């Protein structure tokens, strides 16, 4: 018989106690201290950082939320055990086994993916390094693990290197191509990204391959095909988390094309599978805001950012509040703090955070940071954000060059079209009207903050919004 490692399941039931023990043993000191040291490494030491760290110590990692899913009163099947606790127990039993450490790193990574808890990334790093010390040669699992980790930290060049090494080491294993596909598409080498995605899909036509294929297709403006790919991913999903991911991505696709009801349905299905699917929670809030229930939306968002204050969620809440003339200062403060942390750390730059900076703070800072990111990678997302930041700093000619680069893959999103149309209008280009109309045609509710601006601008250009 052939079985791939039933240990994770044999350990089912190792619960919080094992978790606490493992936490105590997993690193050189108590978790909080580790986190603080890691934080200091990552962020440098400014007064603000220390203040934030003080807050961290009080808060600890985010707990999963009891989501606003519709399945109230429905028992959702409990997972057969906690894979992270099982992986920690395995490492405790076999501290010299490189494979056990590699598995622990992967479990940490997966937990980070689901909880957005960065402490897990630091633990994953440690686990992969330990695995590589125990087995320096031919350690494919730890190698792809470090690549996945680099992608998670947005260190895409390092991820590409790991992916290239892994695929050279084992050309017929899928995970290396997954690392490579994620890295290349963010580095903006689109042909290489498609090639890696195709190889991944050929080796493993399941959730990881089809979700990445969907993203590749979407990036190239092939939204209907992206939907087909996501439905195939959903067909092959074998866990609630994977099903939820596919559902919320289908929701995002529907949202980008103005199909609000369908988007809401996908988000609800995602939350029925996985109540703490943050992207589905954000998506549902977005749909609520667009369908005349802004108070409910704000409540969802507040719940969400308490657990997952990512730039995207903070910015969506901010713009919802500003569009209703409500107080957005807590979110704006948090976003400003994130920008300062980022500036101090010199780390990878999130285009979404820079859209906040361009629209609601000092756009010249966004231009400076995005130029650094653009030197690192030529993604259309960076091109769009840099183009927009340049426009907000009054540099419209260069801005338009960047926004045309952002359009190079044919990715039709309301935001890209709105940005391009706005700059074209500033430069008195005739195509401004068509681009602004495209933004509204794709999704007339694409942003509570940007839609009124789009409509006003169309009015100023003497064009009716709907055309």
């Amino acid at each position, binding site marked *: 018989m052939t079985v791939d490692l039933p240990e994770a399941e044999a350990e089912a039931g190792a619960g919080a106690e094992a978790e606490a023990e493992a936490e105590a043993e997993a690193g050189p000191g108590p978790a909080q201290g580790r986190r603080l040291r890691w934080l200091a490494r990552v962020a440098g030491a400014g007064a603000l950082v220390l203040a934030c760290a003080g807050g961290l110590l009080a808060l600890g990692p985010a707990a999963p939320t009891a989501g606003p899913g519709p399945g109230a009163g429905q028992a959702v099947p409990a997972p057969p055990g906690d894979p992270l606790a099982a992986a920690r127990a395995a490492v405790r039993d076999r501290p010299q086994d490189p494979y056990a450490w590699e598995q622990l790193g992967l479990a940490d990574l997966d937990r980070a993916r689901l909880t957005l808890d960065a*402490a897990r990334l630091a633990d994953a790093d440690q686990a992969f390094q330990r695995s590589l010390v125990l087995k320096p040669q031919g350690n494919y699992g730890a190698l792809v693990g470090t690549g996945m980790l680099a992608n998670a930290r947005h260190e895409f060049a390092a991820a590409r290197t790991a992916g290239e090494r892994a695929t050279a080491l084992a050309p017929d294993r899928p995970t290396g191509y997954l690392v490579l596909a994620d890295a290349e598409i963010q580095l903006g080498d689109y042909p290489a990204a498609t090639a890696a995605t195709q190889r991944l*899909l050929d080796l493993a036509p399941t959730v990881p391959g089809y979700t990445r294929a969907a993203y590749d297709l979407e990036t190239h403006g092939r939204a209907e095909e992206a939907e087909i790919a996501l439905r195939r991913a959903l067909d*092959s999903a074998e866990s609630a988390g994977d099903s939820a991911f596919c559902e919320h991505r289908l929701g995002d696709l529907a949202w980008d094309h103005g199909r609000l009801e369908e988007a809401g349905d996908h988000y609800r299905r995602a939350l029925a599978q996985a109540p703490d699917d943050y992207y589905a929670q954000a998506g549902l809030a977005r749909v609520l805001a667009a369908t005349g229930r802004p108070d409910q939306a704000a409540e969802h968002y507040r719940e969400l950012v308490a657990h997952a204050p990512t730039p995207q969620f903070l910015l969506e809440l901010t713009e919802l509040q500003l569009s209703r003339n409500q107080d957005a200062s807590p979110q704006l403060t948090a976003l400003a703090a994130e920008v300062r942390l980022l500036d101090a750390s010199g780390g990878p730059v999130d285009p979404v955070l820079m859209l906040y900076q361009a629209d609601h703070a000092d756009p010249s800072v966004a231009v400076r940071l995005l130029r650094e990111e653009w030197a690192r990678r030529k993604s259309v997302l960076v091109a769009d954000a840099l183009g927009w930041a340049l426009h907000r700093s009054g540099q419209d000619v260069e801005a338009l060059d960047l926004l045309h680069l952002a359009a190079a893959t044919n990715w039709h999103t309301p935001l890209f079209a709105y940005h391009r149309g706005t700059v074209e209008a500033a430069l008195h280009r005739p195509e401004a009207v068509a681009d602004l109309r495209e933004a509204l045609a794709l999704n007339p509710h694409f942003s509570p903050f940007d839609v009124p601006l789009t409509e006003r601008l169309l009015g100023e250009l003497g064009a009716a919004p709907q055309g």
Partner: protein
Amino acid sequence: MPRSAPSTRVARRPRTLALAAATALLTTAALAGPYLGTSQAGGHFDAPGQIADPQANFTDIYAFTSPDNPDMATVIADLQPTQLPGTTPAPVNYPFATGGARYEIHIDGHGDGHSDLTYRWTFRTEDRRLFGAGPIAIGQVRSLRDSGLLFRQYYTLERIRAGQAPEVLVKDAPAAPTQQSIGQMPDYGALRAEATTVLPGGGRSIATQTAESFQADARVFGYFILGSAGPVPGYLPAANPLAAVNVSSLILQVPKRELALNGDPGRNPVVGVWATLSRPGANLARDLRAQDAGYRQVGRLGNPHIMFGLWGSFGGIAAPGGPEDRFHARPADQDQYDQDFLNSALDPAPPHKIEAAGQFPAPAGPRTDIRALYLGGIGKNNGAKFGFDLNTQSMNADTDPNAVAWADELRLNLTTPVTANPNRFGVLDGDLQGYPNGRRPNDMIDNSLLRMLEGEPGGPSAAGLLPPPLFDLQPKPATDTFPYLNLPHALP
């Protein structure tokens, strides 16, 4: 086009509030570094990265003359290992793969690695649960038609003869659901009986959950992987956990004349059997809306323990870039062209590991007997050391001897009489109807395979090396009547 006031409002905010709000909002998550925003996240780190595909994981293939009906042969494919039994408060669901995925049982009479006959199962799901989540049954389920059964799967079974169009044997036959609990499904046997489908032309098929039947010994596994008695750290614990878990099973019983080359088991007694799962693929260079799915084979199993027997490896320790990496995706008819694969059959790893552990000298190579065991069957003239013809396709009168190729198949001689008192160690101990002449659910293959790897019957026996099997830890033996496998384990 500058925007209105928000940024100035930010500038005027009270500073004390600012810091408090920032610390309250900034959990570790915020400091994890940036995350891509919506409609930009799908190709990214938050997309699933777990490649494991349990639905494609075949654990065991069995092929044997039906002891309760010797004119029939039964093929069983077990998959999705280590399914934990559910309970009423913690329901489980282990569905078969859908979305066009093809479970196939292949039959090769010519011995060239090509399937002359394929049985293809494709499943669809009927899901009546709200938002497609939650338990699959409400209340007690006593029949597949009970309205409380909210998640149902149906399969279409096709028979494909090489070069001909598929014939549909049954359409929309019900699969038995995952056993929920003793309370919710008190008579799973009734559900399984209801899910038994009679095939045109004789034969029966079932898709059901069953109790894991594999007679395993964790201590013997140690020899394959480490070269000494186990248990193997991180693999199976000393107590056999397989005695308490379930699998999914595809059970197919068909007349022997249907399986045999040219419909004549007398002239052509030997068939090679293996199972595959293929999933729909896609070519990104063309429009997905206008292309047929190019199927990709993602799982495969013929002979038991091929990874253990040839390489002494399992998922976690296979050498990257080695022949293990290519095995699952490769059709059997291509085995003959993968030189690394053929070489490893001539030089299997476990005897070297056992010798290195000081246990037993490795037999001299090249191991043509092991190549025959996995890739040819037991024949007088193909390198096997038994000295007689038993289950190689060269025995088939209608086979072209020059076309016979090395391919991993579980080979079964359909004419070997059913043994009255089976010996679980099979052919090595004189029971010609046992492994490796096909495989019966109660065959104890670990010990037989190790003894053959250590040179039996061509050299001294390594039987003394092995601990006697711990039968008290084994799964309950399979029965002698269709469908042979035991009902799934259930909890209250």
